[in-house]
Every structure is written in C-alpha cells, then in structure tokens.
C-alpha cells in the first residue's frame, strides 16, 4: 500500500510536469508558426482594424507567457475555452469579416466538441485494436513457440508487408474496393456501426505488425529459456507451460510495448484514418483545427493526448511492477 501510494504520488507529479511542458511547447509553437487565426476567423479581405480588434479581444496580442498563464488559470477553473472557428452547433464557420459578428460566446465550447467526438474515436480505437488482437495474438504466440517453422515465416512476412503499407494508401484502396467498387460496406462519415469496419481494418493493419513482432519475440525469448524445458521434464504440458508461465513472463515487455508504443501509434493512426474517412472523431476535429488554426481545440487535444499517454504509462509501469516485484519504475 505504501509502495503504491509513493509510486502514484511520484509518477503523477512527474506526469503533471510533462503535460505542462507539452502544453507550453504546443501553445508557443502555435503562436510562432505562420498562419494567423484571425485571417481565418474574419476572412481574407478583413480590414487591419477589424483584425486587430478581434485579436485583442481574443488576447492574442499579449506576450505568450501572459497568454499561457491566463490559459492555465482558465483550465484550473475547468474552462478549456471556445473554438475560434466552430459555431455552437459544431460546424466550421470561419471567414466572417464582421469583427462584431463572431463573439466567442457564439462559438462552441472546446470541451463540448471533444465530448461529442470522443465516443466515435473510442469506438474506432476499440474496434481497430480488437481486430489487430484477433490477428496478432494467435499469430504472435504461434510464431514465438515455433520460431523456426512456418508460423514464424508467416508472422515475419505478414508484419513486413503490413508495416510497409502507408495507412493513407490502405484507407483509399479499401474504400475503393470494399465500398466504391463492390458496395459491400459504407465508408465515409458515421451513420451506424457498419461505418467503422473499413477504418478499423486500416487501424488494425497499422497496429498488427508491431503487435505480432512484440508478442512473437517475447514468447520466443521465454520458450528458449531453460525453465520452459525443465517444466515439461517435470511433467507440465506444453499448453500449461505456455499459458501459465510463458505468457505471464512475456507480459512485462508486452505491457511496456503496448503502453508506450501502441497507444502513441494508435493516436497518430487514428488522426490520419479519421481524416481520410471523414470519421467524426477527435482526429478529424484536430486535423481540421490545425488547418484552420483553431488554437483552443489544438491545445486542448494536445493536453488531452499527453495526459492519456502519461497515465497509460503510469498504469503500465504499475502493472509491470505488480507482475514482477524486482522491477522499479
């Protein structure tokens, strides 16, 4: 209990610092990168006076540290701000040159936009991950156990093939084949669960190579350890050795791999996949926000993503320590 308390206190305080650092870097980069959000809010022919008036009203002319501290203060009160671009109904609405015509109160609250998009992203992530597991777990275990036979070759060739396919290309080809040509599945946007199938396959194709390799290597390492043969000499079946001992020992490296690498990959992959499929999740929201210089949305998603990654890493490290008490994180 004392260990767990000390672990979480230490790791959460480190995590908060990491999230703050990420937030500050994103916040600063957005403001020094080319592309003025005021041009997008007010439209291409807005007068310099209307632009200045709007920029000052949004606090964008204050020094960056002042803006950041104000932003942190707002977050502490639970206010993640309002979108620069999206109206209350969630639609993109940039380009009005009427400085008085775009008051922030008429813009969507960022937290509401994220709450609206998050269920779609979670659904896609869960389906993609599930599909990847369906392929990777049996194939990875088989390849690890018989690491000189055909399963190992299949695993190697399949993961090499999958890893060499860019997800943009896979997405477009699958839409073309499974939706446009054959009409088997819907593809663009989201209206019902059928719209998840093709994008989930694309996510799975991206995740599967890393999962197959991680599982097969972790299992093979344990299978080659002396305890595996000794256990069988002592009368335990190969099945019992595999499911009770090998997989348990393989769990620590797998957890690390899944925690640090897979979640990062999943997040990155989802952004691209959602954009290609016009899937109304966090990824589509974020990519459009980047094109539209919608600072409040980008900042909040960055904070949200880094918080998720930090906490998953903490959970993975805690689980690893629980499985193997020799480990100290």
């Amino acid at each position, binding site marked *: 209990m004392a260990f767990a308390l000390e672990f979480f206190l230490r790791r959460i305080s480190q995590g908060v610092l990491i999230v703050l650092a990420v937030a500050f870097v994103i916040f600063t980069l957005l403001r020094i990168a080319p592309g003025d959000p005021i041009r997008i809010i007010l439209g291409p*022919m807005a007068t310099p006076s209307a632009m200045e008036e709007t920029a000052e009203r949004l606090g964008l002319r204050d020094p960056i540290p002042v803006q950041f501290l104000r932003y942190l203060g707002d977050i502490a009160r639970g206010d993640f701000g309002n979108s620069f671009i999206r109206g209350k109904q969630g*639609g993109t609405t940039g380009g009005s040159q009427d400085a008085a*015509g775009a008051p922030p109160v008429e813009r969507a609250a960022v937290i509401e936009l994220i709450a609206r998009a998050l269920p779609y992203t979670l659904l896609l992530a869960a389906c993609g991950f599930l599909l990847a597991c369906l392929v990777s777990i049996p194939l990875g275990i088989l390849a690890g156990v018989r690491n000189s036979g055909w399963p190992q070759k299949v695993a190697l060739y399949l993961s090499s093939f999958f890893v060499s396919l860019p997800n943009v290309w896979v997405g477009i080809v699958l839409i073309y084949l499974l939706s446009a040509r054959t009409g088997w599945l819907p593809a663009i946007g989201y*209206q019902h669960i059928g719209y998840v199938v093709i994008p989930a396959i694309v996510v799975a194709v991206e995740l599967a190579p890393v999962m197959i390799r991680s599982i097969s290597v972790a299992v093979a390492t344990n299978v080659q350890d002396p305890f595996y043969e000794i256990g069988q000499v002592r009368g335990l079946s190969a099945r019992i050795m595999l499911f009770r001992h090998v997989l348990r020992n393989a769990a620590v490296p797998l957890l690390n791999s899944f925690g640090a690498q897979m979640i990062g990959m999943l997040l990155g992959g989802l952004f691209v996949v959602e954009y290609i499929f*016009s899937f109304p999740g966090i990824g589509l929201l974020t990519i459009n926000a980047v094109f539209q210089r919608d600072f409040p949305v980008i900042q909040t998603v960055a904070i949200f993503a880094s918080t998720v990654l930090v906490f998953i890493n903490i959970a993975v490290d805690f689980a690893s320590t629980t499985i193997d008490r020799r480990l100290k994180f």
Partner: protein
Amino acid sequence: MTINRREFMKATALGVAALSLPSLASRAAAASGPLIFAAAGTVTSSWDPTSHTVAPQITAEGFLFGHLTKCPMSEANPGEILPDLATEWSVIDEHTLEYKLRQGVTFHDGKPFTAADVKATYEYASNPDRPASAWYPGRVDVEVIDDHTVRLNTRQYGYPALNFWYVSSFLPILSAADVANPETLKQRPNGTGPFKYVETVGDQIKFAAFDDFHEGKPTIEEIVWAYVPDANTRVLGLLNGQYHLTERLEPEQYLSLQKEASLKTDRSLSSENKYLHFRCNKPPFDDPRIRLAVCHAIDRSQVLAVVGEAGQASNCHISPVKFGFTDVKGYPEYDPEKTQALLAEAGFPNGEGLPEIEYITSVGFYPKTREYGELITAMLQEQGFPVKLTTLEPAAWEEQLYRRADGQGPGHIIDVGWITGSPEPDLVLRPNYHSQFALINGISDPQIDASLDKERGATSTEERLKILQEETLPLIAEKAPSISLFSSVFLRAMSARLDGVTFYPNGPIDLSKATLS
C-alpha cells in the same frame, strides 16, 4: 468505485444506443431522398450576406436567396441579364436605374416581397461599414415608386448608376424586417430562393425545398451540404454512392471519373483567373520593366499543360465570362529575348545584381499550384532571375497574401485566384489595380487609376465596353502589376441520376429544376 455486471451491461447498452441514434436518423433521411452535396468549403458564422466575401457561403446563398436579375455569365454572351425578382429594368438617366419587381413572391418566413425589401437591402449592403461593401460600386439611395417599382439613385454619391447594372445579379435580396434586426439576419437566412434553411448539425447544413418558390417548388425535397475538406474523400464518397454531387476536382480525378458509368462530370469555365501578383511597391518590382521581363520569361502554354483540364488559355486580366473581356493585343507572351533586353535596360543584364526574389504559392487549395510553381521558377532561373519558391499550406499562404497595415506584403511574387459572382469587371479590377485598394500588389500608377475611373464613369454599356477593351485592359497588361496566367475551369462530378443542374461560373449551383431519380 465498483461496478457490478448489471450496471456494466446497462452502461454498455446506453453507449451502443447513443452511437446508433445518428444511424437511425440518417437512414430515415436517406429514405426521403436528400441530395447530398460534398462541398470543399463551408459557410461563415454569420448568415448576413453583407458580412463576408467567402466563396462557399456565396454558393450556399445561391440556394437560399433571390436577386433582382440573373447573369448566366456564358463565354458567348458575358453581358446577358435575365429576370429574377425584377421583371424589367431600364436606365432612366445617368444616375438612375429603374426596376419593376415580380409580384406574388414571398420570403421563407411568409412575408411578401416588395420594393421596401429592395430599398432596405441595397442601402444596407452598399454602406461602407459593411464588410462586403467592397463588392459594390458605392453607396446608393433607393426610391420606392410603388410596391413593385424601385429606382436606384447614385446622384448624391457622384458616379453613374450603371455600375449597379451587373451587380444586381449578385446582391442577395433580404427582407426589410431582417435588415432592421441585424441579429436575426445573422442567426438564420431568410430569402426568396428555391430552398430554405433547416438546421446545421456538425459539418452538415440542411436545406428543404421552399413550397412557395415563385418558379414552383423544387423536385428535390432536401439538400444536405456536407463539408468534406479532403478531395479524395469527396471522390470516394461519390463513387460509393454516399454523395450525389461534388466540386473542385483535381484534373486527374476529373479524367478518371469520366470513365465511371454511374457518374456524370461537368467542366465549365469559371469567373476566376489565376494570377501572379508582383509586389510593386518594393524593389525590384517597383520597376515595370522587371515585371514585364518576368512576364516574357513565362511560357504560359507549358503552365497550361501542367494545369490540364482545370485551366483555359486567356490573354486578359479578367475571365472570358466577364463583361469587357477581350483578347488583349500586346498581352505579354513568352519571349526570352525581350526578357533579356528589358533586364539589360533596367540595369540587370542576365539578371546580374537582382536581389533574391521570393515566389510564394499555396498547396492544397488551387489545382497544381506547386507543380506549375516549380516550372515557373525553373523558367525564371533560366533567364537569370534569382528566384526562391516558397510553398505554403492554405492558412499560412492566406496570411501572406494581402498587404499589411504598413503597405508591404511578404515576398515578391504571389500566386492567387480571384473569383467574383457577377459579370461586373470592376469587382476584379478596382480591388487589385486601383491605388486606392491594390490589395495584393500595391501598385500606385496614376495612368491605371485614371483609366479605371474613366471606365467606371461611362454612361452607357457600349461606351464602357470600348474603354475597357481598348484602354484599361491593354494598359494593365502593359504596366503588368500582375500577370494573369490562365482562366480557371471548374471540374465537378455528380451521380448519373441527377439531371437538370445549372452551374454558375462563380460557384453557385441552381438545383431548383433538378431531379434525382
């Protein structure tokens, strides 16, 4: 916190139900047959047409609002004017135009359309305080003769009323009651057009057929405007039948979709020309000889070969669908010898001594800008211009486009298109080449100003046409504050089941007579 199996199942069921709800709604909508338009852009935060100059919203306004007249802007007859809410129009004197209005027209909110609505709209929109007032020639007073006759009068403002001749096809007619209440005007559109606004849900806007449309209720009951920023997604959605109509195709997409039996394509000349603007208020382009030297170094036929189906050759600073277009005599053609002669005359033989020239272009907005940008850079470098190409994504490019408060714009050459919704040439010429505006290039040339003021002051369309074709447009070509590379062609595709669609050269789509079988 603990959760038992029953609670978990309940929460899961609620989640699944929540995700399924939009599905049921959309299936119901699909059953009643909405036309789904995959649009490349979307509307602004205000439905007030005088608050913006944004092309996608002008397309949306085409569904919702009527105008006094219609201009089809065909290449064969750019100046053709057809009746819309006005049935007759005439010139009373130099400062007065008279319009007889159609009777029996109603707005979407049920109010009848009368002369008071025209007066409110024109006087409001031409107010210089309105953000879109740059579209209009200046302030105008509207005299109500009777409920269905109005006179536009510009006497007090010192320019001929004829300047509104073509603008009448562009200014959406608003209800006087809405103009009196700008908050309402901003919140929802209320026009006399074939479709009325229903709601906005996320990135989708819904319009429904207007029962009392004066030309008869449209056959298509519902239009869904789906904002889909990615061009590939728009095409794939069209191929799998989720969308019925899409716009802004890349030339390769257009060619491949032509082979699809379930689709139709449309290729039509737009009111947009593509330009390279020179920053004329700083070296080296403050010298017209250097500007002309660049113009003669660009082989526009090669540029057009790169642009393919999305461009059409034209030798003029306005599109062929604009009033006043002509094949300008002496328009700068590819002539490397002239380039070298002009460079030597300006004191930079073979380009030696010229400062580095930054050429800014965008990628992802107009077709093939990066590709022909690289081509033009190579052509200019071949002639000795020390050119550096900067390619930016649209938001960053747009920030660089216009001159800043200090009068200077970034870089030296910048690529842009200019599209307007009326045959009126001054919507292109004055904002770009009159020193009072010169929004991008910063040209300040008394001769150009005088010529633009002269054509604006013409008292008949014949006189104005003559001045434009024989003086103003040749003068702009000679001074070269920009070079017009080509006229843009809009490439669209639609379901083969969709018939009776009319496309306007500035983007709006007339679906009032269309059918989706």
